């Protein structure tokens, strides 16, 4: 049967008119066609072998095939066993294209296609193959990445590849890594003491993991007799360790600030509804949750524009949560004027209702919020220190939200009115302040900001009915720690709790770090019973 198909294909290939894609860009060796032909029906193991043969036979031209395979876009048309790359378009249709020339094909029905299975092992094989191809033919960046990945496996074959890349005229950056690879090989293979010491000199202070590992192995190797080499290796390793340690601290600081920014975002809306207005707002978490769900809905509404969805989600979430906030204020909170403790009870009830409403409308499952490309991945500063983009953007975003809020409260009359109303409602009325409007606007603002926080959190964690509950306790803690009614306190409070947590964590583990921070918080409040930045003056007594 297989044989039959095979021969049929061969015949077909021969009979194909000149316009046939394969005929137009024929893979260099005739063997390639045959290998390709085998892929659709190969086992995973067999596919691995095929890939290896394809690389040898087809060389750089196989890159699009490998890429498609790696991305899981490689399919075979069931009828013909012809290989195509298939992706989904915005409308969710399956569109195919020729592998080797990118020509568009008609849309497919999923039942006509068979996916070419790829597993983990195959994927790393493909990646290696692509790296090898890129080393010679890729862009500078691809080359750089390729050389780095080769450091792990300095086989003579790979070294030959490096050589040819070098002669093909690599950039300085690539040259440098190639030199490093050379040094590593020298250290490994050379018998000449000077050469080896020179190699270690080059390796010293490098942060690439294979360098460290090689040096470490060398130190652990009892077979290594050369004392000078060992001493030099130790020195080099110490230097590396020093730098790694430094970047480790930097990383921790970033982690801490990032955690702090999350705390700040979660707490900042509460700093208004609770801190300024005095409403013990147990539904604050649910306002965050609504913001996150708004993000989800926006992404559902515009599946083609995921990249911009967050930009749209921020104002949308502000409006949704803010609107709900205004409704809550008008419907419930307003009736509790002067009974601040009772707001706890009502808003607790509201939080239950909102949670269950979300469960009824969206199902109790987590919703999938996609991370846009520009928020994925990380800013690599060096092999041991990189900043993840989502955290970085959220950190900046938190600061921006904070600044905007401070501006609103300081510059607009709303800020002044809110403070006046919270200090003496009757007197504010007597001065012509529309206290009801101010209340609604303020609560709306605090809720809206919580919604905006929800947009950010949707990029970090689950978008589900329990989202709000996981932040409510931390939020209150941050606001109180900073000093109720003081926005700057919330900022400092959030960041210091975040950083403290992250610096403790390596030593104690996440749970214990959390416990220690809580206990310290309790003790701290004994020293400063009104938080970090207490209200001063006799009026505060």
């Amino acid at each position, binding site marked *: 049967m297989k044989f039959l198909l095979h021969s049929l294909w061969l015949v077909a290939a021969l009979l194909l008119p000149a316009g046939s894609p394969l005929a137009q860009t024929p893979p260099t060796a005739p063997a390639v066609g045959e290998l390709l032909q085998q892929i659709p029906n190969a086992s995973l193991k067999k596919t691995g072998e095929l890939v290896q043969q394809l690389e040898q036979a087809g060389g750089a031209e196989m890159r699009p095939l490998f890429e498609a395979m790696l991305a899981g876009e490689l399919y075979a048309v069931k009828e013909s066993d012809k290989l195509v790359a298939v992706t989904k378009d915005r409308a969710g249709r399956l569109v195919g294209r020729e592998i080797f020339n990118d020509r568009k094909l008609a849309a497919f029905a999923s039942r006509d296609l068979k996916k070419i299975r790829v597993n983990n092992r195959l994927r790393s094989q493909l990646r290696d193959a692509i790296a090898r191809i890129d080393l010679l033919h890729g862009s500078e960046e691809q080359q750089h990445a390729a050389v780095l990945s080769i450091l792990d496996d300095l086989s003579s074959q790979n070294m030959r590849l490096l050589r040819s890349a070098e002669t093909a005229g690599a950039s300085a950056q690539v040259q440098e890594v190639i030199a490093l690879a050379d040094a590593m090989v020298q250290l490994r293979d050379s018998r000449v003491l000077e050469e080896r010491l020179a190699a270690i000199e080059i390796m010293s202070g490098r942060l690439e993991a294979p360098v460290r590992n090689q040096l470490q192995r060398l130190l652990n190797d009892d077979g290594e007799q050369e004392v000078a080499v060992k001493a030099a290796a130790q020195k080099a390793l110490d230097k590396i360790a020093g730098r790694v340690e430094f970047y480790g601290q930097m990383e921790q600081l970033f982690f801490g600030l990032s955690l702090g920014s999350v705390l700040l975002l979660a707490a900042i809306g509460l700093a208004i509804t609770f801190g300024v207005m005095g409403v013990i707002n147990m539904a604050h978490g649910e306002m965050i949750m609504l913001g996150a769900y708004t993000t989800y809905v926006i992404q559902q509404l515009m599946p083609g524009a995921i990249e911009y969805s967050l930009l749209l989600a921020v104002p949308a979430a502000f409006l949704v949560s803010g609107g709900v906030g205004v409704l809550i204020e008008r419907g419930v909170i307003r009736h509790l004027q002067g009974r601040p403790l009772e707001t706890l009870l009502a808003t607790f009830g509201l939080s239950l209702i909102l949670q269950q409403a979300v469960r009824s409308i969206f199902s109790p499952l987590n919703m999938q919020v996609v991370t846009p490309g520009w928020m994925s991945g990380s800013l690599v500063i060096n092999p041991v220190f990189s900043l993840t983009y989502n955290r970085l953007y959220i950190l900046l975003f938190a600061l921006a939200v904070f600044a905007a809020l401070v501006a609103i409260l300081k510059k607009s009359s709303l800020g*002044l009115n809110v403070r006046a109303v919270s200090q003496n409602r*009757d*007197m504010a*009325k007597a*001065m*012509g302040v*529309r206290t009801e409007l101010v209340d609604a606007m303020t609560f709306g603002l605090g809720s809206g900001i919580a919604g905006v926080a929800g947009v950010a959190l949707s990029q970090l964690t689950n978008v589900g009915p329990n989202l709000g509950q996981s932040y409510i306790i931390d939020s209150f803690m941050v606001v109180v720690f900073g000093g109720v009614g003081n926005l700057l306190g919330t900022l400092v409070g959030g960041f210091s709790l975040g950083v403290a947590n992250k610096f403790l964590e390596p030593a104690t583990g996440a749970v214990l770090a959390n416990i220690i921070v809580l206990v310290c918080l309790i003790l701290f409040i004994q020293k400063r019973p009104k938080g970090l930045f207490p209200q001063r003056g006799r*009026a505060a007594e």
Partner: protein
Amino acid sequence: MIRIEQLNQKYGGTQILWNLDLEIERGSCTCIMGRNGAGKTTLLKCLMGLLPASSGQILFEGRPIEGSAAQARAKMGIGYVPQGRDIFPLLTVEENLQIGLPARRDGLRRIPERIFELFPVLRDMLHRRGGDLSGGQQQQLAIGRALVIDPKVLILDEPNEGIQPNIVRQIGDVVMQLNAEDGLTVILVEQKLGFARRVGREFRLMQKGSVVAADKMANLDDGLIRQYLAV
């Protein structure tokens, strides 16, 4: 200017004001007096709209206002200086003054100079928190604050409580000046006879929630005082 008819007010079950009638003429300076607990503060709060009346009518410039909220009354031109001053303690002096600006009918959005002319001390204190001022300064601020909304009627509830003598004098002068020069109608609750006599031109005596006597200040004699003010 202001006419109150058959006003009744209750704190829940306890009735405080009983069928109270009161008339204040435009440009007058009326002093309301009565014993502790007679209901003076309650009356002023009803007038300002901070307490709901249970029945009765309040006319301001001929229009009934008992249905409108306090903020609306402020915009109509009723300025209020409450007993105990009620400065916004955490706002600066400047902010305390700015609060009332949007309520002005003439659209002015700057603190009028006139206020600093009347109370120069406020200019020096502009950036200090209201709550940190001394009692006398707070009182001046409270009056200044009420003047910011450019009122037609100024209501003062015991403005001299806890104020040093020279400032009491000063406040008296200012009130008289406002009344005489700016033609502001003034309603003043005052316990101290001396001050009342000096500043007020009319008086109303209250007892147990009703106005029991009303006349020119000159006619406030010992008999009335003994009857309604002595313990």
